[in-house]
């Protein structure tokens, strides 16, 4: 069956993307599977200049999940374009850059740089990172600033598809979603990690040097599913579901509530071949569900 989906003008051969920060720059996974199989690759969040991220301990395990406070360590947009991009199979699999700026200006610059590269399939605007002082989640918690960032990126993005990635740490995700749709977003992806914390009672210390980090993994899937469901009801642009997806069943859960595509995140750490395996089992699952197209299933939750 045909698993292709359209995210704005971008065509994915299947709805399986990899989530930013959990799949490196893509090439690290070549040894585990054929990158060309994937619907798309969302690379680690990129800033204008390289960043070292936060100090000290920056991951911790939690029940059915994990915390991270990487703080957007990355090699910078230029190194990515020069050193990595040519090695990626961008002709067969769209490469989506995840963009992080400390301010609107940064986002504009990043948009200008990336929109010129034909190797880049789409831009994902990260206004939801809980692990950085400037920018990040602070943009994603307020309708106005979320819209502003979206407009700024859109202005310079030319024909590139712009996906805005939302933070779950808001009272009403629908409002933010509508705001970025109005601001011109071609698609919305959600959720980013949820601000959370873990401590070591024996050392009396937080497990993350940064104290607070972002929660991801199966633990948050029910929250992500609810938010995708809520957002799908109020916007007319495609929604990309993210949060705890660990199996092909999980993929179809997100499609059932209305997602066009999904991203596999932390689950890549539990099995580096997982994203490829999920692509391989799409057809088996479609057979089990007795469907001949994704449209038949997407958003078809019976209430």
């Amino acid at each position, binding site marked *: 069956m045909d698993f292709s989906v359209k995210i704005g003008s971008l065509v994915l051969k299947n709805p399986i993307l990899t989530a930013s*920060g*959990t*799949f*490196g720059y893509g*090439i*690290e*996974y*070549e*040894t*585990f599977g054929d990158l060309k199989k994937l619907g798309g690759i969302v690379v*680690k969040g990129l800033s204008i200049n*390289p960043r*070292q*991220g936060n*100090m*000290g*301990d*920056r*991951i*911790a*395990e*939690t*029940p*059915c*999940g*994990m915390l*991270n406070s*990487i703080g957007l*360590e990355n090699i910078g947009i230029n190194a990515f374009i020069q050193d990595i991009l040519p090695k990626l199979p961008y002709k067969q699999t769209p490469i989506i850059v995840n963009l992080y700026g400390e301010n609107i200006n940064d986002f504009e610059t990043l948009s200008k740089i990336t929109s010129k590269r034909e190797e880049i399939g789409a831009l994902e605007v990260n206004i939801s990172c809980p692990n950085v002082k400037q920018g990040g989640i602070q943009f994603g918690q307020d309708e106005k600033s979320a819209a502003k960032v979206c407009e700024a990126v859109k202005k310079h993005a030319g024909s590139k598809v712009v996906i805005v990635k939302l933070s779950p740490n808001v009272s009403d995700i629908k409002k933010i979603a509508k705001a970025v749709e109005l601001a011109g977003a071609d698609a919305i992806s959600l959720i980013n990690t949820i601000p959370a914390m873990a401590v070591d009672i024996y050392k009396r210390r937080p497990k993350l040097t940064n104290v607070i980090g972002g929660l991801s*993994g*199966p633990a948050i899937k029910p929250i992500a599913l609810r938010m995708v469901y809520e957002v799908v009801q109020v916007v007319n642009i495609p929604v990309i579901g993210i949060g705890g997806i*660990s199996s092909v069943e999980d993929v179809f859960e997100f499609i059932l509530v209305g997602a066009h595509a999904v991203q596999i995140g*932390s689950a*890549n*750490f*539990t*099995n*580096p*071949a997982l994203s490829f395996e999920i692509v391989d089992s799409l057809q088996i699952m479609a057979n089990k569900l007795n469907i001949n197209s994704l449209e038949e299933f997407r958003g078809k939750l019976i209430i």
Partner: protein
Amino acid sequence: MKNIECIDLRVLELVPLDGKEFFILRLCSPKWKYRPGQFVMIRPISWGYDPFLPRPFSISNLDEDKLEIFFQVVGRGTKKLAELRPNDVVKVWGPLGNGFEIDESLPILILAGGMGIAPFLGLIKNHPYPENIEIVFGHRKNLSCYPLKNISRKILIWTIRDRSERDLLRLKKAIQVKIEGYSADGQIFACGPLPFLDMVHTVCTSKKTQLQISLERPMACGIGVCLGCSIPATSNKNFQVCKHGPVFRCGDLTTFCEHRGF
């Protein structure tokens, strides 16, 4: 990336050493070539969603028949590993990291603290000139907790039980003396808990001796993508311990040592 592979391996056996804390886990062999100091990420299928993350372990030994892991129960994950039974299936990816750069023609001094012995077991076993190896092994628990039985008689091994401040001083002394002997033309490899490495590192730095040191950091991916194990290499560049390490040359760690206090 090099020949890293992710496969499901069956448990052959789990051998307890002196109680319920130290174990050798034998898995079917993935038949990889590896370098001592390299490691694997391990995640039993039975873990389901929880514990969530895989766990990193040094390859203690790897041959045609088996992959061996020597581990200590310290937390939730290792406790669950100690419940594995023959034929249980474990997801394993590796060989990961760089491993020690070994010149087999030169004498080797191994400085191991406790579980820090793990990466050296295969090295010791497979080295063509065991008489060229000398080990200083500092340990807290009974010697019977560590799989030292099969170490060649040709290898000089100094074991020092470290239970008090005074023992620690003795250990330090021994290490200082030994290092001296290798500073000119030998190779020095170290692995162990941070305070142990700290001591070794200080001695080597003060004596301007070459040293290869294996580090541990909490890890999620083991393959350089999560950036959870990063340490500062210089003030504007990081190493990922899982990818650029876990073995580092003493001098490469300056920035990390400044930040983390060793």
